[in-house]
């Protein structure tokens, strides 16, 4: 879309008979193209394959697409596209550089783990002789109605979640790589719309799930509208939507466009536009005061989808936020930093304090994700290369901890499905010490205890923030970490030192899918905690935006 847009601009400007064909670097865009291609194939599978064959084919297709795309990312990075050969693609609308490749790699790995959780069919009891996953048999059927019962009995399954997820992943891959505001907006919509749908597809507690989807959709639409309006205002200011060109106009290097003489260089447009873009992105990362959707959506959505959102969406949105502030607005640092300070402090404090009162594991993890968004923001604010590397590393480590934690949540079940109320987790450590120990490991990583990945990440961002002169932020961060530690520990106490309730939940034995997801989470959490050097190097090498 953006390519067409620039085409039109150039054709009008050149005023010649020949229309130049847009140059598209297919090889270098291959990570996204592979994922989108797999998503399209997935739709064909839905249309043409018999129902009973779809599950296997869809899972295989999704995993193949994601892993293929990850291989493409690795190949590009190995070829030096992340460092020396980084550049702009698709006529300047997509950037191929270190941060983009690093974050695309993280998003793809998180998506692979999420798809493994999607594919889990062993946890729930067989309904009418049919193995069931976390998704409803038929999204269109009324919850609790006759049609739903029939669909369940017939063994229907929402296998469309796989192509939907692939589309979302494709959008997420584009989001942190987008080099102009319109491409960024398109990417935002491409990954948001499938997510709204995915949220509504829970098998259990469908009304809660649909409510979550509606809330997410309404608030998300507002956020998108803000983002788009901000784009328009910035175009009015700079006469361009390209991020580097906006930076040039701000710093006065580039001349202003004569056609927009009345509006260019109008600082009100610039600042309001910037604020609106920030609102759109803060919503996606779940920063206070744009966080209110997070607990409801995290609680209502099917848990594998929650894990996917908590990990991949956050990575993509922080990627875009970083590119926006580092590429387009570095010259305005003194204008946006105070606001970012406020948002970061509020996010850390509110996330940590509200989490203390939560009684539901998924809501607790939601508030914890808000607090973590605050910690990551301290790294964003550092506005130095260290800060960028630290944020990249933090996103990598956080994704796998949070995916692992949600994977464990799917295992703890009673007759009504997942038992997410905290009281039913009492004494889990006595009945299932291994599962409880794994969850405790993830909680300790969230709390930032040394020798887990959470500590390394926290140290990296706080160190960068302190080096960038944000010492008060570090102090607030440290104190809110202490508050946050309280509720993580509360769950550990509950699991290990409380007596189990009679009739409490049991831990379902997972199949190889969820087992792998949890094992990957544990390995990454411990690995990045004990031997982080390789990945710190990788993040640091990747921390240079192309302009």
């Amino acid at each position, binding site marked *: 879309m953006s390519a067409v847009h620039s085409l039109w601009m150039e054709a009008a400007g050149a005023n010649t008979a020949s229309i130049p064909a847009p140059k598209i670097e297919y090889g270098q865009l291959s990570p996204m193209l592979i994922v989108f291609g797999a998503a399209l194939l997935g739709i064909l599978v839905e249309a043409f394959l018999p129902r009973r064959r779809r599950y296997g084919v869809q899972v295989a297709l999704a995993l193949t697409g994601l892993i293929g795309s990850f291989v493409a990312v690795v190949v590009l990075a190995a070829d030096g596209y992340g460092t020396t050969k980084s550049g702009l693609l698709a006529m300047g609308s997509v950037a191929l550089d270190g941060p983009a490749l690093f974050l695309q790699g993280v998003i793809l790995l998180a998506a692979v783990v999420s798809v493994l959780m999607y594919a889990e069919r062993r946890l729930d009891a067989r309904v009418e002789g049919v193995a069931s996953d976390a998704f409803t048999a038929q999204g269109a059927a009324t919850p609790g109605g006759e049609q739903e019962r029939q669909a369940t009995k017939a063994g229907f399954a929402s296998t469309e979640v796989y192509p939907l997820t692939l589309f979302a992943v494709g959008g997420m891959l584009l989001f942190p790589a987008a080099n102009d505001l319109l491409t960024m907006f398109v990417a935002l919509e491409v990954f948001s719309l499938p997510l709204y749908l995915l949220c509504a597809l829970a098998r259990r507690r469908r009304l809660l799930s649909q409510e979550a989807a509606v809330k997410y959709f309404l608030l998300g639409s507002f956020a998108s509208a803000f983002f788009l309006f901000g784009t328009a205002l910035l175009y009015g200011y700079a006469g361009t939507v390209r991020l580097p060109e906006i930076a040039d106009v701000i710093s006065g290097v580039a001349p202003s466009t004569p056609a927009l003489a009345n509006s260019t260089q109008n600082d009100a447009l610039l600042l309001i536009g910037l604020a609106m873009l920030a609102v759109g992105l803060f919503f996606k990362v779940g920063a206070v005061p744009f966080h209110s959707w997070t607990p409801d959506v995290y609680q209502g959505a099917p848990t594998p989808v929650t894990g996917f959102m908590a990990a991949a969406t956050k990575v993509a949105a922080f990627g875009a936020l970083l590119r926006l502030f580092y590429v387009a607005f570095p010259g305005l640092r003194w204008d946006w930093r105070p606001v970012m300070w406020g948002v970061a402090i509020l996010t850390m404090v509110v996330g940590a304090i509200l989490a203390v009162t939560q009684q539901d594991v998924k809501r607790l993890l939601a508030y914890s994700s808000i607090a973590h968004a605050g910690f990551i923001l301290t790294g964003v604010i550092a506005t130095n290369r260290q800060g960028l590397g630290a944020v990249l590393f933090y996103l990598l480590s956080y994704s796998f901890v949070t995916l692992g934690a949600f994977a464990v949540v799917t295992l703890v079940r009673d007759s009504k499905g997942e038992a997410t109320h905290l009281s039913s987790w009492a004494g889990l450590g006595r009945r299932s010490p291994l599962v409880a120990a794994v969850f405790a490991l993830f909680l300790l990583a969230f709390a930032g205890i040394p020798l887990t990945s959470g500590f390394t990440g926290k140290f990296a961002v706080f160190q960068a923030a302190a080096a960038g002169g944000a010492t008060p932020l570090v102090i607030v961060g440290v104190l809110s970490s*202490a508050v946050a530690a309280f509720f993580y520990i509360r769950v550990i106490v509950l699991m290990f030192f409380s007596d189990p309730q009679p009739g409490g939940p049991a831990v379902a034995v997972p199949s190889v899918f969820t087992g792998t997801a949890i094992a990957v989470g544990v390995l990454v959490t411990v690995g990045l905690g004990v031997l*982080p050097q390789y990945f710190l*190097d990788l993040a640091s090498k990747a921390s240079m935006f192309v302009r």
Partner: protein
Amino acid sequence: MSYLLTATCAVPAAGAVLTAALPAGSTEARRRTTKLTALTVSAVTLALAALAAARFKPGGARYQLTESYSWIRSFGISFSLGVDGIGAVLVLLTAVLVPIVMLASWHDADPAPAPDGTSDSATFEGRRRTQGFFALILAVEAMVIVSFLATDVFLFYVFFEAMLIPMYFLIGGFGDRAGGPEAARQRSYAAVKFLLYNLLGGLVMLAAVIGLYVIAQQQGQATFDLQSLTSAIADGKLVIDPTAERALFLGFFFAFAVKAPLWPLHTWLPNAMGESTAGTAVLITAVVDKVGTFAMLRFCLGLFPDASKFFAPAILVLSVIGIIYGALLAVGQKDIKRLIAYASISHFGFIIMGIFAMTSQGQSGATLYMVNHGISTAAWLLVAGFLISRRGSRLIADYGGVQKVAPVLAGTFLIGGLATLSLPGLAPFVSEFLVLVGTFSRYPVIGVIATFGIVLAALYALVLYQRTMTGPVRDGVRGMADLKVRELAVVTPLVALTIFLGVYPKPLTDLVNPAVNDTLSQVHRTDPAPAHPVAGPAGGEQK
């Protein structure tokens, strides 16, 4: 490069993993295998620690047997170990106490009958209990030893924090199981209080660690290596402005003061010691808390000499309050283990006072005090634990006349108590005397007030003995068995060490003194010249 120090930390760490992985102990034989494995590992650790101490040359370099491996290059962090005299004696203390604690806790982690009469050995947790307990003790030992040996600030911090987790599970997971749900609630409260206090301290220290690194990085010294940092500070290559230095000092000191604990940050200690098993309580007060006082000496004084001098008077006041306050509260306790906990708070006051008096006697005394307090409190607390396990009550009022039915138990309890009140001839006397002399020569008023702590110590220690051991034999005490062979094996080395180090402390002082003098030179302090001529060379040195 020798691998001795790495081995000293790696053996208990590997032993912890091995012990945890042993087959579940539903039978007595299986449990015995677990316990013997853990005990063997701790004995090997003791041998390695002794070897390291023997290889250490008191007159040589400050840090010896050094090893260094790159760990996280991006932040200038290395896995660097080195031992100085202070570290050597504390590693020895740890290595000596851990096997003793294991022997004393031999049956503490056996599957106990649940309140409803069923044995919990049917549950997974019940079967794994023994492995868990001994593996956690070994994990704590490994982490404590790394903390004592680390010559990298970040490495120290990592293990200083990480040791909270096994400690937390030791406090919360194992204790008096006959007490029912109320005792379990109290225990989990104590564990959480312990963890939150120490975690808060640790996080404040994290901010200071980051601050130190950022300042060092800005001046081209991007490293966490303690020796590079201290020498850069001494040479003026690394200049920290006074405000920042004070803030960083407070960040470090806060964490160590919580751990030590210093009044008014002490309130977690009586809960944690009261609710845990006697063995765990010894680990807390005699081993883990020593990391706090040790770190004050090594990191606060070494890295922030000027700020240390600046804050020394305030810290001395707090430590004196702690001495008197802890002793007063000990006098008023009804619970034996909480009494010992408050006594320990009073003793930690002495240790911290000795460190910040900044005299060679004071700091040598403080280091000796760490060792002697560890040994004597371990003896006192473990015998108290044997007593409590016989009667099933921690209340002083439930005892009386024990010395008539169990004379050996009563006798060793008396020795532990006498050591606590610093009876001349027993080890703590030497260190307490040195601390008081060292403090008095610079801060006479504070020295005099602290002396009242000794008087109060005599009160709580002797009154405890009188109420529990003398007088008519109480109902619950009648027929109480005297110390068994295993228990004698626990008490004998501790009592022997208490007497030996009381009479002949020279091996320890020889190890400690060079390191203390080095620390003092880092803070540019020399001993104050005596105001009056004194007879003989530096009176009071009990050599």
